[in-house]
């Protein structure tokens, strides 16, 4: 199974804290094999109670929690776009949805950062602010 956006962000947050899968499993009282499967995209986002324990153990910010909840419920977001969103506080679920809706014409593919810039512009134009 391909890596999921939720799993990719979970992995990023775990590695940012310098935790191994076993260490996170111990801290969050969750099977480390289960966490590994989530990260690989072999399991969907966990139920709320487990999610809360993992988020607490990873010391996630409000932005990251909001992002993870959105990614858990929205499977069509590209992992690299989601990972970019972790470091950009301006990226809202709405912007991610707009960026993920992109239909390309041509072989060129913009970077996740460029996609977000475009999504912001698209929002401004469609709301009549540009």
């Amino acid at each position, binding site marked *: 199974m391909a890596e999921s956006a939720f799993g990719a962000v979970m992995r990023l947050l775990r590695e940012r804290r310098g935790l191994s899968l076993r260490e996170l499993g111990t801290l969050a009282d969750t099977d480390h094999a289960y966490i590994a499967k989530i990260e690989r995209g072999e399991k969907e986002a966990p139920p709320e109670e487990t999610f809360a324990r993992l988020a607490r153990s990873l010391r996630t910010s409000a932005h990251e929690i909001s992002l993870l909840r959105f990614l858990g419920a929205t499977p069509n977001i590209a992992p690299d776009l989601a990972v970019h969103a972790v470091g950009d506080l301006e990226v809202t679920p709405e912007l991610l949805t*707009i960026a993920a809706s992109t239909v390309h*014409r*041509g072989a*060129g593919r913009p970077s996740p950062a460029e996609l977000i810039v475009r999504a912001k512009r*698209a*929002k401004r134009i*469609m*709301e009549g602010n540009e």
Partner: protein
Amino acid sequence: MNEFEAELKARRFVQEVGITTIPVDLAKYLAPFKGKIAEDQLDDDEAGYTMTVAGRGPLITLNANDREARRRFTACHEVGHLVLELPSEHELGPGWSYFRRPLHEICCDVFAAELLLPYKLFIAQAGNRSLNFATVDELRILFKASREATASRLAATSKMACGYVLSEGGQVRHLVRSAALRAANAWLPPGSPVPSQSAAHGLRVGTDFSGERTHAGDVWFDGWGDVEMIESSIFIRGYDQTLTLLSCADQDDVDAISQKQREERSDGDDGLLKPLDGQLPWPSGKRRG
């Protein structure tokens, strides 16, 4: 979804939107979706993209560096994705080439050609004009379309036996045929070499400068030696492409080819049932032992 369905849906869409003037006002195609068109400086390998803002509509962004005709085609192609509800499939190959071009993208191209050069409006303008690149240039200015799209349309909608060949790197990319040429089974396999006796080949290798030539039809099509064919070609050096319009000098020659093919088919009826002659084949008088 196939090309034929895409064409039919495009014609219906043009009719529903109510396009009556040329060049076509593209905003009318976006209106049903509450969509907008914008431009941006994009890289050469990106003609445009569409982003949808929930509750608002789609925004089609076009590469400001492209020619107007290409930008218009791109916009219509994106409308094709919206109307046909086909996802993008550009990952398999370069967008500018028909080689390995995914079916979704070909369908959206067919759709775009119909939007940019609507059948009824195109026929009204093309009428009985000569099949050459002077005509193509006049029409493409009227419709603000590319030379390729207009030439392709001109051949496809002609009542005469004619065709448009796009070649790239000395090889045929595709042949667009009029109904009469299709009926006569004229065919060029994609990837086959541009014929060495053609004006297209001459332009490419620098031995022909006019691009106009009248020759036997079998220069381009096998078995067409009895047909006199008029070729009009141009060469686009930057893309190593030749654009060729082929028409038959005398329509009767094409009819003769069709007739000959029918006769050949009827001569080879071995294995088929005999025509009914009113005589029952039984009893045969033979008994099984």
